[in-house]
């Protein structure tokens, strides 16, 4: 039960990572292998805001989110935009290369030491009905839920959000409807990186911070998006929670070392038997 609850809580953050990736994929059909590195940048931004300016990690997302939005938009405009029509394999390698550049630049700038962000409440927990839950996890879940809600509102109710979804459905048709597809791509990549960075900020009080932390999350992000169906925002939200629970419960039953295997086996099974994902439409 304990594992289930903490799985759901961490799953909320995973959902945020997955949603970012799925928006990028939906709009541009580019699989972003640098997604975890964007999250890592968010973690470092949070860490330095906390140690140098004493900004609370959960408050710092007000700064990191727009910052990483701009970074992502810039990345899309200058680099990724050039390979939109290239082979998917080349796109993958390009983003892998970008990820390597990010993680190693951070390593050169801040060394590869493990950093720990410890707030006054880092190790405190709340007890509800006999189950004790880590407090930072609860706060981050609340923030995640708020952001996810805002995101749904943005995508479903605003004109820009609808334009993004239209572009994701059919790029050509969207262009014919007078939607500025290029601008939507920039927006989507910015949004995706902002979400990844937010997730990074939210987990920074509970995770070690080091330059290579991204690759773990990149892989997890794929598992989540494929599980939910590539390009489906609701699917990614669900997939995130599911993976959080699978990892947490799997860790209890098979030991912490094996929890990743549980996730990857789940991933392969989904790829094999329902490659369109749990909520995805058929592949094109």
């Amino acid at each position: 039960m304990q594992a289930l609850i903490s799985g759901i809580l961490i799953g909320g953050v995973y959902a945020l990572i997955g949603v970012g990736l799925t928006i990028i994929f939906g709009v541009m059909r580019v699989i972003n292998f640098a997604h975890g590195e964007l999250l890592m940048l968010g973690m470092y931004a949070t860490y330095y805001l906390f140690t140098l300016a004493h900004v609370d990690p959960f408050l710092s997302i007000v700064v990191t989110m727009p910052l990483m939005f701009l970074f992502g938009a810039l990345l899309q405009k200058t680099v990724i935009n050039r390979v939109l029509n290239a082979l998917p394999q080349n796109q993958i390698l390009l983003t892998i290369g970008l990820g390597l550049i990010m993680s190693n630049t951070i390593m050169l700038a801040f060394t590869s030491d493990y950093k720990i962000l410890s707030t006054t409440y880092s190790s405190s927990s709340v007890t509800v009905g006999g189950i004790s839950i880590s407090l930072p996890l609860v706060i981050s879940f609340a923030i995640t839920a708020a952001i996810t809600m805002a995101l749904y509102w943005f995508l479903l109710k605003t004109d820009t959000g609808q334009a993004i979804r239209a572009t994701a459905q059919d790029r050509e048709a969207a262009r014919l409807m007078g939607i500025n597809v290029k601008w939507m791509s920039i927006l989507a990549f910015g949004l995706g990186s902002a979400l990844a960075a937010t997730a990074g900020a939210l987990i920074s009080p509970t995770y070690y911070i080091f330059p290579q932390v991204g690759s773990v999350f990149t892989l997890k992000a794929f598992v989540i998006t494929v599980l939910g169906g590539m390009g489906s925002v609701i699917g990614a939200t669900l997939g995130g929670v599911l993976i959080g629970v699978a990892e947490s419960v799997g860790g209890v039953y098979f030991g912490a070392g094996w929890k990743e295997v549980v996730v990857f086996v789940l991933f392969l099974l989904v790829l094999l038997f329902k490659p369109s994902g749990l909520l995805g439409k058929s592949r094109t």
Partner: protein
Amino acid sequence: MKRSLPVALLVLAAAALAVLPKFVESTYVLHMMILIFINVIVGSSWNILGGYTGQYSVGHAAYFGVGAYTTMILMQFKHVAPWWGVWAGTGVAVITALVIGSICFRLRGPYFVLASIAVAEIFRVCALNLKDLTNGAEGILVTDIPPLMIGKTQITDWVSKVPFYYTGLSFMVLIIAVSALVRRSKLGYYFQAIREDQDAAHSLGINPTIYKNTALVISAVFTSLAGSLYGVYVGFIDPSTVLALDLSVQIVMICIIGGIGTISGPVVGAALLVPLSEALRSNAITDALIKAGLVNAESKVGGFLKENLAHAHVLIYGILVVVVILFMPEGVLGFFRKFSALAPRQRGEGGRRPGEGR
């Protein structure tokens, strides 16, 4: 004539490499050459699957690691000499490849890439956790390699780098020969047909599953050979060196940077990447900059370079990959070929040059 010239050149190059250790005594040069050989082997074997058949596996570390682990476990715990263990390693790699192939080849494009990564990661986590078999994160350290004997004569005791040099060289010549053979054979055309359009190939009677698995098996055998050689040569393996995602990426990069789908691509890629990363790691570039008077050793910049450039080789890899994909998608070789084709010297009409990938 056209075809015999490159063959003659290749034989010449092989002969030059074969006598190199007689003239060069520097162990550093030999070390570098062995690393280049290993990289050419993995690059070329990836190329058969990724370049010819178009299946971009980003999980080749699995075969490298399986080979290395089989050989090392047999040698260290069962006292089986590595030159037998290596073949056991290829056997295990073939089985692994068939299992992985039967799962992953149902998927295409980006889904295949993701599945190949997932499988390689499963192998890494297993190697970390099966401590009884693999020593877990501690890795396996070789204490001593038994001398190679034929009858009563000792061929080599594996103390110097020279025997490793020749082993690497012969494996490399073998894989290049296999690459060339596959390319010219019916098999190679099947592979390329699958790469260009799997459905069209299928409708022409080429069974994609069988031929993709064939390509994977060939690829896995040589990748595991390279892994075994690496393990025995370096004398130490652990999951984060021989089964890492970074390694898989690096294998792909060798081909991307050299030129995918060509025989010489991986050779060029390895010959560029290995010395570059070694030079960065050993601070040779910083020293050269200081010697040339471009950077003052005492100044802040000099200090910074000295401190950090050694760790920057992966960063340089990243930049290289981005630059290559953006500006020379056919690799360094393809880029220069295009460059020379742009020169005013006009070539004959049907001059499709040998080795042209796509």
